[in-house]
């Protein structure tokens, strides 16, 4: 049985990764998960300088999901390069660094700095709904997305994954813009903007008022967007949004994803990634599937 997948020339032992922001840099979950077993670890977003993030409360539970407005708190690239990359290097897994910024220059600074680091791929966060400048502003207009993708591609020494926002009218337009600008892969979806109000206190549940919705509640939206985008572009897609088990992950693969990422469910069950990997293998065995790549986009299109 072959579970390897290749994305932009980088071969992963299996198609299961962690979604950015839900797994730190792996350290916090290494009590629970043997990081060697993961296809890749996608780190928490890192900027050129430390970011404080938003005031608390930053998280709120919702039906079958959660809202977060962390605001991309991170230590900046210096601490990250000195501490987190060497930590991840100890493991036999691919390292994908999520990059965030407020201006194009911020992104480029991090991308250039990572050029000499032992990092396998870059994931560019142009879709965080919780920071006021940058981030999502680049990911909601096709021309802006095109511009920032091309700038990053000029400087990047690793393959570039553009992480797309679901908070757009037409995901295929965004996917095509990123592809046209040279993106090597896409990842989707980031969180869906939401809001929760405490009716007893008449207060917003989050200090930021709005937050990003994640968890099983968003999975059907994510599967639909992955399906649509995979028909619009020829670059590989990393699918995510509410994956809780192998069945969910396989759904994303069939919809057209070449790999998948587990996000909010890490918080619910810290062993989710491993259970997804084992469940995909069991499914392949059950149906006599030799290569996991045979599942990619393999939904039966006939009625």
């Amino acid at each position, binding site marked *: 049985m072959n579970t390897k997948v290749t994305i932009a020339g980088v071969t992963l032992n299996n198609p299961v990764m962690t979604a950015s*922001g*839900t*797994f*730190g840099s792996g350290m*916090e*979950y290494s*009590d*629970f998960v043997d990081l060697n077993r993961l296809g890749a670890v996608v780190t*928490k977003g890192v900027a050129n300088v*430390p*970011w*404080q*993030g938003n005031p*608390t*409360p*930053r*998280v*709120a*539970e919702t*039906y*079958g*999901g*959660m809202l*977060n407005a*962390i605001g991309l*708190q*991170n*230590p*900046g690239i210096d*601490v990250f390069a000195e501490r987190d990359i060497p930590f991840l290097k100890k493991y036999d897994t691919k390292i994908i660094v999520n990059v965030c910024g407020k201006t194009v220059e911020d992104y480029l600074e991090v991308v250039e700095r990572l050029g000499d680091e032992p990092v396998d791929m870059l994931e560019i966060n142009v879709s965080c709904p919780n920071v006021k400048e940058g981030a999502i502003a680049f990911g909601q207009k096709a021309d802006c997305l095109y511009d920032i993708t091309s700038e990053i591609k000029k400087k990047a020494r690793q393959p570039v994954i553009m992480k797309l926002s679901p908070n757009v009218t037409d995901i295929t337009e965004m996917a095509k813009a990123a592809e046209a600008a040279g993106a090597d892969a896409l990842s989707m979806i980031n969180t869906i903007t939401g809001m929760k109000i405490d009716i007893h206190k008449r207060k917003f549940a989050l200090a930021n008022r709005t937050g990003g919705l994640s*968890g*099983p509640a968003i999975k059907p939206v994510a599967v639909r967007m992955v399906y649509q985008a995979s028909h619009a572009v020829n670059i590989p897609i990393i699918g995510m949004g509410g994956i809780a088990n192998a069945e969910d992950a396989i759904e994303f693969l069939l919809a057209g994803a070449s790999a998948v990422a587990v996000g*909010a*469910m*890490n*918080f*619910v*069950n*810290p*062993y989710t990634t491993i259970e997804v990997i084992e469940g995909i293998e069991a499914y392949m065995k059950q149906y006599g599937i030799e290569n996991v790549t045979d599942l990619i986009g393999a939904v039966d299109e006939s009625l």
Partner: protein
Amino acid sequence: MSRKKKVKATVVSQKQIADQIYDLWLETELAKHAHAGQFVAVYPHNASTLLPRPISICEVDKSAGRLRLVYRIAGKGTAEFSACKTGDTLEILGVLGNGFPLEKAKGKRVFLMGGGIGIPPMLELAKELDADKQILVGYRNKDLFLEEDLAKYGNVYIATEDGSVGTKGNVMDAIRANNIRADLIMACGPMPMLRAIKQYAEEQGIEAYISLEERMACGVGACLGCVCKTREVDHHSHVNNARICTDGPVFEAKEVEI
């Protein structure tokens, strides 16, 4: 430090001990690693309530491998827990956070101060502390809980908001009313109480260790949901935001901006 784990725990017993307050004993392998001031995260069975509920450890019975959790019903998750009967199982994640720094209290006069649902962790703390213990607990009214357990380990001073038992007011009023002093404070309770303690400790020139709470998702330091402002640059994100779940929940009062 032991590795954190998510395990299945068995309900040994559960009873209601005050309005909305439940007293739950769990049998779990996590008990052997637990200390005063740490917490576990308890998972609801209902998949619509996904996130584990952080609950402080009230008492540890290492020999029997049991943890006691005393919690208040605050929503759907804790309401579900309150219906658990002997023999039922609950999934828990733990042991989480750093406990109270017991060594700091050795041989000193210590105030253990608990307010409302911040009272439970004071019980294990009272058991583990080797010090001269004055225990100050604040309730809304005469619907008291844990006051008899606490009395086994030190002098208990009660304050109630309505004055029905002990000093009328809060734990700060109880300090003044009883004219007592300490070299060190360890506390858990609502934010206004912790702010008052921080200020009192500064005025008195004594150390205070306070246990904070915040909305949490992961409980293990990954999501950065439950941060609090710190005086010094934090070691994780280098932005003066410590993670309550992993850097706390107990902090020295002067280190945090609350």
